């Protein structure tokens, strides 16, 4: 008899509790597991990609140049990687360089010629454009400044790593010397063009 009574009470209690969850408008609230805290959890995730403005604090020159150039819409993070950690470390005095991928990969990801790209978007054939000349291979940054790309590119480039001026400036190369230079030889370039001064 007692066993039956206990069973009946247990069953009724369970059924009652179950009905209570049914009649609640959102069962989650009855059990106490509401969603109220969850949007806050999502809203408090760390922001990893910083906009270019955050880089200006330390890297004024590059940021300013980029902001005024055709690459104004290219976020620093999209080439240099998510900068939050780098900024946090830098602000606390430590250096944390952001490793950069190979320039050719970074540049061709946007500028390699593809049929699917809008025709009015600047794109080149990565195989023939800037092809190795006289055994000197080039990276895109040999001629193009990523922070201030011009069209056509005007680059004040270092002479280091570029021993043969005629590789690029020879008569049949990309940027041949003007006719005024016709009678000059390759070893006389440095008499007028000082390192770092470019054209």
């Amino acid at each position, binding site marked *: 008899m007692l066993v039956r009574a206990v069973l009946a009470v247990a069953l009724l209690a369970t059924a009652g509790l*179950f009905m209570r969850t049914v009649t609640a408008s959102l069962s*989650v609230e009855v*059990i106490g597991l509401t969603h109220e805290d969850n949007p806050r959890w999502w809203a408090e995730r760390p922001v990893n990609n910083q906009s270019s403005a955050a880089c200006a604090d330390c890297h004024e020159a590059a940021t300013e140049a980029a902001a005024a150039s055709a690459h104004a819409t290219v976020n620093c993070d999209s080439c240099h990687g998510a900068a939050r950690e780098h900024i946090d470390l830098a602000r606390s005095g430590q250096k944390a360089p952001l490793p950069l991928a190979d320039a050719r990969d970074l540049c061709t990801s946007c500028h390699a010629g593809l049929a699917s790209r809008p025709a009015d978007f600047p794109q080149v054939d990565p195989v023939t454009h800037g092809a190795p000349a006289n055994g000197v291979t080039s990276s895109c940054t040999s001629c193009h400044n990523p922070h201030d790309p011009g069209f056509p590119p005007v680059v004040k480039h270092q002479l280091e790593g570029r021993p043969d001026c005629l590789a690029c400036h020879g008569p049949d190369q990309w940027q041949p010397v003007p006719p005024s230079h016709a009678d000059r030889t390759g070893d006389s370039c440095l008499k007028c063009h000082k390192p770092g001064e470019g054209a």
Partner: protein
Amino acid sequence: MDGYVFPNEVEIQWSLLIVLYPFITGLVAGAFVVSSLYHVFNIKSLKPVASFSLLMALSFMLVAPLPLLAHLGRPERGILIFLTPNFTSAMSGFGYIWMFYLILLLTETWLVFRPDIIHYARTTGGFKGLVYRTLTLGMAEMSEEDHQFREKAIKVLAAVGIPAAALLHGYVGFLFGAIKANPWWSTPLMPVIFLLSAIVSGIALLIVMYVVVMKLLGRPVDHDCISSLGKWLLAFLVIDLVIEGLEILSMAYESEDSWEVVSELIVQRIPVSYFGIQLLLGSLIPMVILGALAAQARREGASPVIFAAALLVLVGVFAMRWNVVIGGQMISKSMRGFTSYTPPLGGREGVLAASVLLMLPFYIFSVIVSFVPPWERPAVDEGERSPEPGEAVPAWEGADSGARGGAWDWERR
């Protein structure tokens, strides 16, 4: 992978275990329907398997949540389906429908076998006796009112259990059929198709298990019963095939934008499984066999043929679950490609795990029948009472239990 598949779709999400779950719940629903056909509609030819099928349903019901649990990304949170169900989700139905149906099954089984339990509790000692006495739940006697209540309650439960079984398997069909994102799944006919193939698989498994168990025990098989089961199997098989055929014909005729990928799925990706196993081997051939048998007068030799047909049906229904679950996920939502799936051997969702889960209900069944064998009912028959305290308990050991007479005497024809 073939064609274009959305990047997130390359690996399918619902594996072999999710093929197993509707197969198992389908068997439960089917077995229960057979039991209810006897208890509610008094189909006398099904009496030999009425209690047998109840125990079979219970065994599979206990295993049903396991493939789901094993498949969850966070199995330890599975209880949340019971605690915080979101009622707009068909899957939340698993919680309350399964629980309710388990309670119903347990109650009905307990009521059906209660006189036996009381009898065994009185006559068995040791550990087994302790189990029996626990199972009596402290109510070790049955008065005349108890008997009347028992009979009425069994009828009520068996009756309620039919729509409940429909719900148990229908919700699974709705779970798939309500996903508009998947063209192979999305159809209002899905709950009906699932339910019909469930009943078909349940009857088929019952035939197979009944014959196998009886042969293992060296007991005679009731051929009338098998013949009757065969006819019920045929009837449901026909309806099932009609509805399934209607669905695919309708899709082919209306030829919506999704028909291109759906037709490629069934014709090029899963033709063997769909046309070969599900339709031909699992439906058409058994239908022809059973139809031919049904047209003739009942014969002794019919039983092995019905047994073979039942085996084919079982394979066909498993293939149907596979075709729905896996086939549906093979189609990319891009409508432009297909992905593929081969179940791994090991791991939580592999072939070994699925095999263990499939073998488990049979083991559970063997344990249950070692306590309450449905083919030996020493204390009960329709219209008979369990002995009153003090009354002599008739001997029940030995093959000649014909002392109680009636329909329990297999040998008599």
